[in-house]
């Protein structure tokens, strides 16, 4: 497996980019077909490490050469983005993905997804994480709880920032963890559940950190969770809706996602547990029929496909829960628990689950 560099400062990045550019220039002058060999970041190219329960990027590479009309655009885009990264790194600045896109939307076919992908491609080609490229995504995660951090000259506690909590910084690697008074992390899939938990002061009552990535988590959120898990040894529990999408999100916290698999080692938290809402919880906690939803065709298809993933296929608990979901054809949102009363989740469900270690 390719070793991923987790840390790289601006000067190192400048040196690395210069090295690559010189190599390309040399190829051009010796009349070769200059090319980038980019590890494929696709659904077919991943390696699942069973022992570590992690998804890594596979061996498959795609060549993007200049003299091939099919790949010249991607080749050019990569060099162009590299030159932008170079300029910003020289001045020790960061760039957002959006800023990079707006350098030349025409070149990226007027679609930011194109430039976002190119950034990931450069990272994986150079064998570094995206933050090493000094590219930040507008982080959307929120963290609340007894956690003292320092960013630049500011030191703050995530409990003292009001009910909105701390908006996780995109420059997460430059944030220093000063102190942590929490015993575990409860990662919540969505904002709505987080608001309920904050309102009930769950984090204060239970000495935990509440973190949400608001759906599919961004890198900064995952990086924060990983650092807390690694540096502060906090166990991580994940709370999602009881559907295939929820399980998928938990899986990406835990094992990494396929599209960002090259950064797994640096982002994933293999010890994370899916606490709920498990398909088996629906009966266990008597979620009324009226609060359960019928799975759509898309849900079912997604669930069936997930069953094929080796990390689910070979994980008995995960497999059983997923099979149960499929066989019933039912899904439910966390809010379904509210049918038993608005505080049922914080007062009954979560304590009982944590107490009985009813997670997978």
């Amino acid at each position: 497996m390719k070793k991923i560099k987790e840390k790289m400062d601006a000067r190192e990045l400048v040196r690395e980019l210069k090295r690559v550019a010189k190599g390309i220039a040399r190829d051009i002058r010796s009349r070769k077909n200059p090319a980038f060999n980019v590890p494929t970041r696709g659904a077919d190219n991943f390696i699942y490490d069973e022992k570590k329960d992690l998804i890594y990027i596979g061996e498959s590479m795609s060549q993007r050469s200049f003299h091939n009309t099919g790949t010249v655009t991607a080749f050019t885009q990569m060099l162009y983005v590299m030159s932008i990264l170079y300029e910003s790194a020289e001045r020790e600045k960061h760039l957002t993905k959006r800023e990079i896109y707006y350098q030349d939307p025409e070149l990226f076919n007027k679609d930011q997804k194109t430039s976002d992908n190119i950034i990931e491609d450069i990272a994986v080609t150079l064998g570094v994480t995206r933050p090493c490229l000094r590219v930040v995504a507008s982080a959307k995660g929120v963290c609340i709880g007894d956690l003292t951090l320092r960013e630049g000259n500011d030191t703050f506690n995530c409990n003292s920032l009001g009910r909105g909590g701390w908006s996780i910084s995109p420059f997460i690697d430059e944030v220093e963890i000063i102190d942590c008074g929490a015993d575990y992390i409860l990662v919540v899939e969505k904002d709505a559940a987080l608001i309920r938990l904050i309102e009930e002061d769950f984090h204060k009552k239970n000495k935990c950190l509440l973190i949400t990535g608001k759906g599919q988590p961004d890198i900064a959120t995952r990086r924060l969770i990983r650092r807390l898990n690694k540096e502060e040894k906090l166990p991580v529990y994940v709370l999602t809706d009881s559907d295939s999408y929820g399980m998928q999100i938990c899986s990406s916290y835990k094992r990494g996602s396929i599209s960002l698999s090259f950064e797994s080692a640096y982002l994933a938290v293999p010890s994370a547990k899916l606490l709920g809402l498990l398909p088996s919880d629906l009966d266990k906690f008597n979620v009324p029929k009226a609060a359960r939803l019928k799975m759509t065709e898309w849900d079912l298809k997604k669930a069936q496909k997930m069953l094929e993933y080796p990390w689910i296929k070979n994980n008995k608990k995960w497999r059983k829960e997923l099979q149960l979901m499929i066989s019933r054809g039912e899904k439910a949102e966390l809010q379904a628990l509210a049918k038993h009363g608005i505080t049922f989740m914080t007062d009954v469900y979560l304590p009982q689950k944590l107490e009985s270690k009813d997670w997978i």
Partner: protein
Amino acid sequence: MKKISRKKAEEQIHNHIRLQSAEELLKRVDTGFGQKARAPFQTVVEGVQNAADAIDKAREVLLRSTGNDDYNAEIMVSVSVVDKSRGELQISIQDNGIGIPKNKVQIIVRAGGTGTIEYKASRSQQGIGWKAAAIYASQSTGKPMEIISKTFTEKIAHRHVYDYGKGKVTKVVEEPYEGEFPEHGTRVSLTLLGDYSRARGNIIEFIRRMAAIHPYITFILKENGNITKYEKRTSEGIPIPAPVPPHPNSVDIGQLKDLLAYQSRIRSISLAGFLKKNFCRIGDKKIKELIERATILQYFDQQNFFAGDIVKRIAQSEKVKELKKSPEKISAYLKTLVRDVDIDRDYAAKLYISGKLSNNIRSLDNNELKKLFKLDGQPLPKQIFTEKTTVNMILNDEKKVRLVAETLRSMSFPSPPMDSLMPIPKKTLIRGFVSIYNPEKHVYVERKPTSTSGRPVQVQVLGMYGGEISPDLRDQDKLIRIANCTPLIYEFGSDIITQTAREIDWSLYKLGKKGSLPSAPVIFVVHVTSPQLKYLGVAKQAIGADDVIAEEIKRALQAASRKLRKHVSMMEKHRLSGKAREFLEKHAEIVSESISKMTGEKKERIYKPLVQEIRRRRPIAVQATLTGG
């Protein structure tokens, strides 16, 4: 080659000039003088054809007498308006060819045609075209025809005037000509009614194409004093075809009678001697076979059945074909198929299976014929001629003439010799037309000579693609038809070349689609050469249908198209690589700028080699860029 005197060479060639039949005939058939716009064209065509033939004959005289056939050959066509209001034109065609001996002019002017008995490809084969022009001129203006001619050896030129009115040819004047005139050659002049402004385009096209095919002749068109000149460009002429006696399979009764009559006038010899002397591919063995064959045919005639039809009926039967190779089944089926004649059905089945039955009885020898039709033991009719029967005795009996002709056509003989053809030299054909049309690509295909009904035939095709050729050409301009070195202009649709071309699936060659002429910017020049080539009319503007010729044309066009297809595909690729270049060069700009930012070197140091490499990898034909492809 043994050198002989010029006089003798001339004589040898002129020896064959003789009288043929009637003037009146020409008035009844379509000679191409029907329309006012066409009459001047047809006149020029006939005159120029004769002139070109006369030049080739002069070359022959020179070749035989000096060993070198190159000289400053020239054909001049002069058109002058005599009476504009009436549309009266004078057209004269002058060549510096062999010339007509003074005493042979009166033969030549007769309507029967110059009728060389020689059997070789030539432009003007029947020799009636010019006379048709003269008759038309006489009918339309009442004015006579003038011929001025001088041979190599004659001391002075003579001027002859002939009147074609009153249903016959009358000599009006014959006198020494004192005016300016070439060393040798002929000038013929006619005054006729015609719409020259409408005929002009076709005349110019005809002369332009003639000049392309004959780069060893200078062509001059003088229109009321305005001169258009196509200069001689090479000393290499069209190889002079060798005269070959007719092939027995190609002879018809009329021709046979003419030959007999001609022989009879010299000396009445035996039939065997006559056949061997006047036809190719006949030897003693064939004569014997022929005498026996004649009795077999006589027998068929007596029995009142047509053996050829029966053979054809079996050969073409779909049912027999279905029965494939089962002799029993075929034999049984023949009982119903051939009820009119008692044939050896088992033997017929055997012949069928061995592929011996075709559309006529030519493929069967005497023994096979006799066995098939159960002739053994039958009383055969008395022979009406033997090999010793004299030419006179045959000539005097219509029945005998017919039987000889029939027998000659019903037997198989080896293919005729091929040196009687006049293919256009490859270089000439290519240079001639490529210089006119400037294509970006041309291909040449030459079929091996073959034969059809005893006449050798050969097809050449020049395909030209792209360059200055527009894709929006009219059909007539996409297919340039040439027959025996003469371009054909009129009767485009009915010509076998056009019809064959229409049957080709052009989509196979990326040149168009099926059922029409190509739609790509392509021109095909098709030359068919054959002695006694069969035309659709006396005007000789369209080659008549013939399966063998059609097949040859088709194959030649297909072979040329296959070659062109390679080019078309390549051009497509180039067109794409032109686009790819543009695309890549745009990216090269960004790439070199990006690299230069990171490495600090000059942008040009990257851009230049990158673009050079793009161009090396994506070659574009120069023409492609010129034509904007």
